[in-house]
């Protein structure tokens, strides 16, 4: 909406890096954020980590969280005859939600149905029933709340290019459907809070799964690392190669490249080296996790996150706030959904369980909050053996700080015809925006009201800026 202002902010922040943040609006916000932290010169007194699990391709959450009571299963089965999960299998993984606490959001599902999880997710079901995880219903990118009538007659703005992977994934990660140039909201949080970390060299944002828009910031650039450990440049450590290493370093040194892209390449290489040196020292030796991580990509990514959190202290990485990005692919289930979806949901469930157990082992379960995000939910209608790109979908939040065992927000209707939540072709209109979902996490992480307003400018359009799924 305000491209010029964002651009101005970006430029002023960048030019101020390493210097005074005079006259920049975000600079002032950063000062305010620093002042809001208790003592220690703006350093956070405690440790907190946010972990984003992005489900690439758009998770079919309507087959992840499924009603099994006769009435609601009947509706679901009628809408998805070719794609319905077996009723008894869902009932076997029944969720037992906590009752409503007076004055607080969350509780049993809003539609009164009985829900269970996909049969491949027993671990996540246990996390929910033990109140370590919660479900946030029907979340998706919005430009403020919108009704079916408003969407269909165009009287209220909706995000552009709905149902496209790239765009909706971007909207999820930026929470700014109005600004194609926006940074990610994880990156914007890091821009605001980065000086709350004692270690200013390691970025607050780290990705275990390549560059993520979620973590792209104006001044803080995410560190991308492999799930398999820290690899170093062999040449720089080769025996009797001191002059070779000197030459390599001289070529990438600051200030010797004339071309802008050469400078960028040199800068990226220098940063990669400086960071792997730090991480290599900190991550040796690796801890032993009592609950093994599953032997797959997401398991390896989350194990590496746990390894990194494990060395958060002053003798290690010396971090107080960290945001991690991991991802799991294969959710774009246009084909063979019944088969493929089972496998990836099992991976998700097992990996989340192992990760939660690792945080328990470290004694910081309440300081680590994990949440899922995805391109979109999928259509209620199917294409025979798969489903298409939808809009809203359900998500999981997990951690000791989460008010778990509860549903938050409104469960959509699963009716094929006359569905009040249907955008038109089985795509479900979200009833909870990404803005309040993200803001609830950001507030817990340490962003104050002024910061929230800057990071999520549309937050005021929603009935509540805090969905209440985190205690405190």
């Amino acid at each position, binding site marked *: 909406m305000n491209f010029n202002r964002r651009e101005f902010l970006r430029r002023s922040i960048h030019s101020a890096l390493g210097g005074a943040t005079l006259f920049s609006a975000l600079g002032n916000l950063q000062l305010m954020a620093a002042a809001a932290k208790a003592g220690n010169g703006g350093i956070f007194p405690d440790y907190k980590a946010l972990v984003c699990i992005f489900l690439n391709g758009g998770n079919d959450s309507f087959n992840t969280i499924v009603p099994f009571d006769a009435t609601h299963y009947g509706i679901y089965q009628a809408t998805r005859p070719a794609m319905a999960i077996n009723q008894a299998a869902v009932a076997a993984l029944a969720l037992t939600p906590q009752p409503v606490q007076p004055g607080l959001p969350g509780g049993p599902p809003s539609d009164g149905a009985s829900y269970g999880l996909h049969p491949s997710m027993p671990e996540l079901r246990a996390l929910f029933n033990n109140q370590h995880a919660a479900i946030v219903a029907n979340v998706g990118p919005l430009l403020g709340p919108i009704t079916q009538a408003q969407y269909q007659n165009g009287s209220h703005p909706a995000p552009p290019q709905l149902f496209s992977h790239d765009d909706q994934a971007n909207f999820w990660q930026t929470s700014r459907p109005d600004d194609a140039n926006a940074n990610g909201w994880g990156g914007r949080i890091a821009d605001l809070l980065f000086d709350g970390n004692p270690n200013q060299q390691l970025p607050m944002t780290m990705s275990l799964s390549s560059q993520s828009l979620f973590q792209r910031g104006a001044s803080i650039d995410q560190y991308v690392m492999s799930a398999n450990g820290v690899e170093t440049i062999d040449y720089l450590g080769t025996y009797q190669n001191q002059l070779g290493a000197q030459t390599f370093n001289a070529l990438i040194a600051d200030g010797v490249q004339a071309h802008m892209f050469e400078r960028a*390449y040199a800068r990226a*290489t220098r940063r990669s080296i400086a960071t792997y040196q730090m991480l290599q020292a900190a991550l040796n030796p690796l801890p032993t996790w009592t609950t093994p991580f599953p032997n797959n990509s997401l398991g390896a990514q989350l194990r590496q996150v746990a390894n990194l959190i494990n060395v958060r202290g002053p003798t290690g990485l010396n971090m107080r706030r960290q945001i991690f990005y991991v991802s799991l692919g294969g959710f774009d289930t246009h084909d063979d959904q019944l088969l493929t979806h089972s496998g990836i949901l099992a991976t998700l469930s097992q990996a989340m369980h192992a990760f939660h157990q690792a945080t328990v082992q470290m004694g910081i379960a309440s300081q680590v909050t994990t949440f899922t995000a995805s391109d979109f939910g999928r259509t209620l209608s199917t294409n025979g053996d798969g489903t298409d790109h939808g809009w809203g979908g359900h998500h999981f939040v997990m951690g000791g700080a989460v008010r778990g065992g509860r549903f938050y927000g409104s469960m959509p209707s699963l009716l094929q015809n006359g569905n009040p939540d249907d955008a038109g072709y089985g795509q479900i209109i979200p009833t909870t925006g990404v803005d309040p979902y993200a803001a609830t996490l950001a507030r817990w992480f340490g962003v104050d009201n002024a910061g929230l307003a800057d990071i999520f400018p549309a937050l005021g359009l929603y009935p509540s800026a805090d969905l209440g799924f985190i205690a405190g």
Partner: protein
Amino acid sequence: MSISRHFANLWHRLPAMLFCLLLPLGASSQSLFADGFEELNDKSAARFLDQATFGPRLQDIARLRQLGYQAWLDEQFAAPTSLQKAYLDWIRLTLQQGVYQSQRQEAWFIHASQLYNPSNPLLTHNDQLRQRVAFALSEIMVVSDKNAALLFQPWALADYHDTLARNAFGNFRTLLEDVTLHPAMGRFLSMLGNRKNDPVLNIRPDENYAREILQLFSIGLDQLNLDGTPVLVGGNRVPTYGQDHVRGFAHVFTGWNFINCTVAQYSDCAPGNPYEEEWTSPMAPVEAFHDNTTNKQLLVYPGVALPNGLLIAGGNATQELDAALDNIFNHPNVGPFIGEQLIQRLVTSNPSPAYVARVATVFNNNGQGVRGDLKAVVRAILLDEEARHGHEGVPTTFGKLREPITKLALLWRVAPGISINGRVFRWSHVRDEFGQLPLSAPSVFNFFKPDFAQPGEIRDAGLVSPEFQIATDTQLVTAPNYLGWRIMLFYVGSRYSVVWENGAPVPEETLFDYSALKLLAADPPALIDHLNLVMMSGRMTPFMRNLLITRLNGTPPDNIPGQPSGAPQDVPLWRVQQALYLIVNSPEFNIQK
């Protein structure tokens, strides 16, 4: 090459060679070839070949200087197409060995690096420009073996790449149709097996291919001006299509499956083996599953042939496909949208709008009234004033980050890659080290997006740098390590255990033949100047040149990796390795300018 042809080449080269001798070094000639372009020197020829091929060898530089741009392009347009599928067939039928995606990788390198081809020793792969354009197209019209349905289908992907290569100099409309009907694409974006509405089962046509052909393969999300800038109305971008159009195309793209499929088998027509013809033959219609009862809303734009862009129900699958592809092909966005991306892949990340407009104009009309002539488009891209001289106009931003996979292809051109039996890899094929392999992107959105801007100076300047998206902290370590591994250990004569077994070289592993470079290495400046020409178009700064020469004059280690124990210290070998490693991992080399 026959003796007589060799002499003929020399004869044609003579005037250019004499001409250069008369000029002071570095002075660019103002003299013009008959084709209107100035006389080429080694550096300007190398720079052109850096954009049009996988790297200039000395003989390529000589050939281009002899022919001039236009005739060189004509020669490339006429060169026979190198095909990957034939290589896979040879491994299966003649060697009777397993074929996986890494065999496709072998074929890609044989073509890109012009390696000896054991499947057809008489074949010389001279279609560099075609292969480079095909590789560019493979990053626009993406299919990927990362998709579980294609992971074990090397023939489908090889044939898809061959399809891009065959069409690289053809018409975009044909390319669009061949891509649409290829079973690899059909599987990747689920048009294969797509079916009409079934109200009882609540089944609707799959929208996957409909969406991506519009968003990524042809017109993009926003209406564009001829110069590639977005059309703005009231300051806002204007969408090219909405959900109704996606739905319309999704209905058109129903009723297609593998060849030889029947109505009864429609949901499962996949052949039992990856080499069967179903995987390499265009999909065929099964009319019972084609929607012939609904009108389809297709694209609307000035001059659209279908009234209001509406395709009236009743056509069969083929008729409707033709109409829909015509409807897309004639959208005014295609020229700037595809033209700009091809410029980005070949020449520069940030072409001026005027450059894009010139290329789009040629796309719209090749001068003879033909739209979509890719031969004319490629010619326009490479011969544009900005391609040839942009580095002089904006010397600090012109160009692009080299794609990681092309660095190995280039190295095997600089120091020829050879193996005993002509195979390229036994165990050493590229895995994740580059964050990139042909037809192996993480998703349909390619390895990197055309508008990715590296945070920091590039982004602040409002520029884009697509390839930087995969220059991650990880890749900036793993790629140098992989390249270093090969440079230091995969050379002719190496005793390294991966390439040397039982007293002989492992027959399948490709090794660098450093013999020609080692002859130069007695004189470090001569070696550096040669590598500067064939790797950096002679644009290495004196700063870098001095650093490298100092390094090469330094002391080698006591033991050079891969040398037999007790062998005398091979200083030329060590110098060649050091020079190649330091150049290929330097910032100056990594930006193609």
